[in-house]
């Protein structure tokens, strides 16, 4: 292949290095106004009144909006339509938007915000899942969720774990806690809305999901979707944080409709911390029964999620805290119970790995403990029980290619694991962990039978090929993948392909840049469209050349007889021949993943047409006096199927290592409660980049990246995902390396120096040397949904009605937008 697999300059690189990439905040339109949001200063209150008269009369103010202007609720998931663009009756967290000022300048809008008076009637607050479970009232959401302040409850029994645990040689039970953290994209969210000359609404926004924004705008504004155009501007980093429909997008759209003028909003950095939708804090209890050689016989997992104030993607996030536990190692029986609570904090949602890094951390650290307890090499413990390729798991996920064995072998060899582990001396250590991830969610977030991704090609007599696709460039390189695939099929250079992407007026739907779905789904659609174009061109060229179309090859901008390469024509001449024969040339391609064998309610979360795999070995240096952890080197191997552009693939792996390092050691979206006598407020401890610690260039370790290419038949040219999976092993590998270095366990993320030091101090006193949660609060688990695994005669369905995952996901709810079921 001429393009696929070759290291190349990405097609949008020139724009990025010249500063010409147009991000949402870079857009300037004539007569443009500016919006700012007034955000709640209290965490939970009824709104008695909003007095905005003075603000409305302030200099430069053109429009003032409050909750009364937004009667229709919205939400990314049909089962969680619980947000309003501006709060009308209640605020639920510090930062919840209450009013908007639209003015001539950003400064005038900001000045006017200070004149708005909101009369709040404070309500008791809920700071944590434990409090949410203890205090069903006052409810953060009336009429949402499972009652009280519980948002979601799920209970699945994939085989009966109790007898399996009772019969196991050893049972390991641990509690783990994974603190929340946030995406921290360098680009603050921004959006511009305007009416086009025909009176239709256009919204340009830094969103990962223009299609879902389009749907929700139509709903929230009560406008026909075909009167709205949503353009996803290139995202200045997303990581999941721009995959939800955001309040400010609806506000500026409404403001443009009401003023007839373009309206822009750019969130401040502080506001980005409130917009959040980041990693859920999750408390986990993991009980695993093993044979004497460490082979897993049953796993029992409970997760308790702190969802923050709104549903967001939470219905899916809840299930992701367990459903992918089965695709890495073979788990014969699996019980999974999950609970998501509402709290008076910014809403949590999907961050890179969406719900899976937390339980992955738990399992990989526990496996390390099992290996130590059984005197086994942690690498061997994993190698002996990998989930088999081309198999179906206990919870009915279908695994395709599975390259984890080679990944483990590569990092073990590269790091000299077998020679160096446990032998680096006090303060230095090696840790190993693995992970796996989706290559695209198997179902869209609203149920339908249409394609998940569509590509259109338009080709004209100049030889120009334009590819249209709704996919969204968030920095990951989706534009480059699209151009590369079309170019490969048509024998062109990727730079020859013009691209129109992420525009709901111009491009066929692609569901968005989330769940690592774009390369696989858009890529398959692009191959189909390009193969159809190639057939048209080959037929016409064959008739001109007097050879059969099967003998024609497309390469180096030529179409020629493979057996006589001199007999051929330029690509452009082939287009001319085809346009003369067929008329205007255009083709389409589309992709929808095959149906999952999971037929139970809740089985819509977890299925993917392929899974990527990663193994990492991390070396650490721990200062026993300060607890400070340094990571000098990482070896990481990722089963990518096939790297479309190895430069970008490596960048995704290294970026994941970086982000994992931050999550493991320092990043936390943490809150504090003010003294009750002063205020009931729960406030973000650190809503600034300076205080939200993230790794800089000085903390970045050396990274040895291995791209393991075991092509998957479901992927375009065999490609699988690379954007999220490589993050997963980082956090547990660091925790395991710290144990190897200094013999203590920090069963919590982030692993701060304070925690390491505390564990070391306890160990010095002869105690266990463990820091981590001690209590899992009582949760009113519902009756289990019983789903027998394939090897116990199951058919993918539940054998009872159960109570698990009521109305959870696409398999059960109506496809109509916004219908709550």
């Amino acid at each position, binding site marked *: 292949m001429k393009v696929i697999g070759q290291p190349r*300059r*990405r097609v*949008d*690189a*020139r*724009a*990025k*290095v*010249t*500063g*010409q*990439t*147009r*991000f949402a*905040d*870079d857009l*300037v339109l004539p007569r443009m106004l500016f919006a700012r949001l007034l955000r709640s200063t209290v965490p939970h209150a009824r709104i008695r009144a909003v007095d905005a008269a003075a603000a409305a009369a302030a200099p430069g103010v053109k429009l003032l909006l409050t909750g009364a202007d937004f009667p229709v609720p919205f939400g990314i998931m049909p089962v969680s339509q619980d947000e309003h663009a501006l709060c009308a009756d209640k605020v639920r967290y510090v930062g919840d938007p209450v009013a908007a000022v639209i003015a001539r300048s950003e*400064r005038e809008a900001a000045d006017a915000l200070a004149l708005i008076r909101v009369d709040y009637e404070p309500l008791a607050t809920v700071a944590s899942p434990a409090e949410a479970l203890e205090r069903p009232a006052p409810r953060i959401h009336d009429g949402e969720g499972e009652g009280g302040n519980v948002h979601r409850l799920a209970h699945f029994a994939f085989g009966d774990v109790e007898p399996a645990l009772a019969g196991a040689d050893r049972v390991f039970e641990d509690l783990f806690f994974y603190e929340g953290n946030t*995406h*921290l*994209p*360098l*680009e*603050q969210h921004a959006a511009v809305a305007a009416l086009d000359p025909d009176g239709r609404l256009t919204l340009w926004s830094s969103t990962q999901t223009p299609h879902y924004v389009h749907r929700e705008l139509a709903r929230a504004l009560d406008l026909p979707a075909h009167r709205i155009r949503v353009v996803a501007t*290139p*995202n*200045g*980093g*997303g*990581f999941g944080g721009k995959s939800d429909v955001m309040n400010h997008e609806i506000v500026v759209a409404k403001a443009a409709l009401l003023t007839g003028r373009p309206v822009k909003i*750019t969130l*401040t*950095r502080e506001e980005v911390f409130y917009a959040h939708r980041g990693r859920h804090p999750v408390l986990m209890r993991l009980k695993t029964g093993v044979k004497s050689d460490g082979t897993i016989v049953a796993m029992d997992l409970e997760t308790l999620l702190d969802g923050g104030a709104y549903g967001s993607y939470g219905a899916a996030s809840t299930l992701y805290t367990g459903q992918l536990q089965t695709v890495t190692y073979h788990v014969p029986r699996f019980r999974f119970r999950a609970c998501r609570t509402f709290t008076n904090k910014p809403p949590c949602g999907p961050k890179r790995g969406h719900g899976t890094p937390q339980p992955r951390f738990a399992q990989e650290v526990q496996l390390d403990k099992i290996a130590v307890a059984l005197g086994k090499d942690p690498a061997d413990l994993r190698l002996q029980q990998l989930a088999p390729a081309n198999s179906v798991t206990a919870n009915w996920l279908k695994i395709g290619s599975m390259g984890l064995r080679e990944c483990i072998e590569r990092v073990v060899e590269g790091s000299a694991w077998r020679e160096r582990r446990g032998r680096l001396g006090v303060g230095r250590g090696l840790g190993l962990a693995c992970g796996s991830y989706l290559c695209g969610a198997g179902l869209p977030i609203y149920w339908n039978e249409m394609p998940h991704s569509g590509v259109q090609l338009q080709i004209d007599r100049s030889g120009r090929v334009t590819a249209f696709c709704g996919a969204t460039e*968030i*920095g*990951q*390189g989706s534009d480059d993948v699209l151009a590369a695939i079309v170019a490969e099929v048509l024998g062109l250079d990727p730079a020859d392909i013009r691209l129109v992407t992420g525009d709901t007026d111009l491009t066929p739907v692609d569901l968005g840049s989330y769940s690592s779905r774009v390369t696989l789904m858009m890529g398959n659609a692009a191959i189909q469209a390009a193969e159809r174009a190639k057939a048209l061109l080959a037929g016409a060229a064959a008739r001109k050349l007097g050879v059969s179309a099967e003998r024609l090859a497309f390469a180096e901008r030529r179409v020629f007889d493979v057996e006589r390469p001199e007999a051929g024509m330029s690509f452009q001449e082939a287009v001319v021949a085809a346009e003369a024969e067929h008329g205007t040339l255009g083709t389409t391609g589309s992709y929808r993943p095959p149906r999952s064998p999971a037929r139970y309610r809740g089985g819509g979360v977890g299925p993917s047409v392929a899974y990527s795999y990663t193994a990492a070995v991390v070396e650490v240096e721990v200062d026993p006096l300060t607890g400070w952890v340094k990571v000098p080197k990482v070896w990481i191997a990722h089963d990518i199927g096939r790297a479309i552009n190895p*430069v*970008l693939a*490596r*960048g995704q792996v*290294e*970026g*994941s*290592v*970086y*982000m994992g390092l931050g999550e493991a050691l320092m990043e936390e979206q943490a809150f504090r409660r003010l003294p009750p006598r002063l205020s009931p407020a729960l406030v973000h401890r650190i809503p*600034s*980049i*300076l205080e939200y610690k*993230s790794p*800089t*260039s*000085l903390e*970045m370790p*050396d*990274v040895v990246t291995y791209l393991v290419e075991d092509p998957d038949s479901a992927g375009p040219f065999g490609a699988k995902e690379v954007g999220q999976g490589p993050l997963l092993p980082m956090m547990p590998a660091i925790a395991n390396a710290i144990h190897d270095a200094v013999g203590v366990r920090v069963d919590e993320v982030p692993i701060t120096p304070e925690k390491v030091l505390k564990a070391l101090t306890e160990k010095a006193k002869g105690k266990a040397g463990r820091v981590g949660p001690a209590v899992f609060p009582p949760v009113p688990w519902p009756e289990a949904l019983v789903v027998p695994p394939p090897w116990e005669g199951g058919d993918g369905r539940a054998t009872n009605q159960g109570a698990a995952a009521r109305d959870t996901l696409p398999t059960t709810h109506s496809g109509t937008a916004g219908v709550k079921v």
Partner: protein
Amino acid sequence: MKARTEARRHGGTDAEGRSARIRLTVNGEERDVVFAGYKSLLELLREDLALTGTKHGCELGECGACAVLLDGRPVLSCLVLGVECDGADVTTVEGLAEGPELSALQAAFADKGAAQCGYCTPGILVTAKALLDRNPHPSRAEIAEALSGNLCRCTGYLQIFEAVEEAAGTGARRHRGTGRAG
């Protein structure tokens, strides 16, 4: 500094301190600008000179996305007031290319995968340029140190380091005369 002092007579603010007028050199061109006196250099560049390549990231000098060269030295333009820049010489990302040709540094960033989302890229490019201008062959540690005030959330920095190293090599070849003129 002498040039700046001489040029300062062009500058000033109105009686209420609302609008300001300065003359400065941006990417080699002299510009007179009248702007709201409270604006930072970042806002002045983006809003009054339409140079949107330089980015907002935090407004507090924490992220480095707004870095530009002020008289050849990297500064955080969100922390510099526009009125302080009378007579100054400012270089932004828009001033790095040589006509239609990418500079060696830009070409290396493009080839090595140093720009993913591209949002931190303008600030990192000018900061790296300042490094190479004073130290044409920096070590990996010197590069990491120079860029430690520029956050990048996408790349993990390694491909950025490699791009700067590549540019340092390419720069050396260009100075030997194999590159394009001027």
